[in-house]
């Protein structure tokens, strides 16, 4: 049986990769994709702990996280399309009109 800490280390590494992508990429869509990576890391943690705790709760919450991820992708990509229509760019460092 694989130790639980292996799964949690893998989830931590994947979460860090997602944070790295979110903080470094310029493209808004790539930033949303990095958020998906972070949500997947949390899902892996949830399912692993649910398996080792002999409980179904983690899997139920993974289901809800997948729902929220789908909603977030739909709304976020809608915002990206609207941004591209009005500003002709999806790069976050070029959208700085709100700066004081």
């Amino acid at each position: 049986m694989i130790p639980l800490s292996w799964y949690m280390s893998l989830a931590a590494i994947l979460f860090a990769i997602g944070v790295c992508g979110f903080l470094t990429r310029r493209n808004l869509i790539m930033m949303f994709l990095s958020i998906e990576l972070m949500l997947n890391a949390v899902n892996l943690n949830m399912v692993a702990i649910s398996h080792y705790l002999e409980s179904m709760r983690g899997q139920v919450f993974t289901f809800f996280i997948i729902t929220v991820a789908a909603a977030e992708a739909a709304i976020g990509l809608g915002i990206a399309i609207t941004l591209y229509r009005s500003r002709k760019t999806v790069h976050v460092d070029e959208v700085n009109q709100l700066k004081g």
Partner: protein
Amino acid sequence: MFTYLFFLYCAVMIVGTGLLAVTMRNPVHSVLMVLILFFHMAGLYLILGAEFIAAVQIIVYAGAILVLYLFVLFLVSLRDEVKMDRFVTSAWLGRIISVGIGVSLIAMLPAFILGQKGHWPMDAVIKATNTKALGIEMYTTYIFPFEIAGLILLIAVIGGLVLARHDTPTTIEKS
């Protein structure tokens, strides 16, 4: 033994494709890397005994969400994207922060203690099948969060329609 090998293979593929996804120049290649990552994640769910979540991972994430990402990538300009710089100017700061987060998360792992065991040991899950066990738990204990999830999806549908609609036909009629 086979489980260990499978876990290690999936872990190496997940970390490798994740790193490639956040560093590759072409966004379409990044999305395809994330597709491979989701398939290996489904493999990990299978060895954890969560067959339903593995199927949902492939159907919803790989089948629906990534296709949505690809469509939106094709809607925005991709041609100049491959020539431009793909990182923000302060990218090194983000890398330092993410390495710090990863190291501190792993360093905190030994302090983690499992809580009280639940009511679904592996034999009961196998007897009832995974999907039925998940359904029993979801439609009895978690029925209220389940309905809130439905509401969130409704808001997402309406929000996506409102945000992506464009008003050019009406402005043409006015002019």
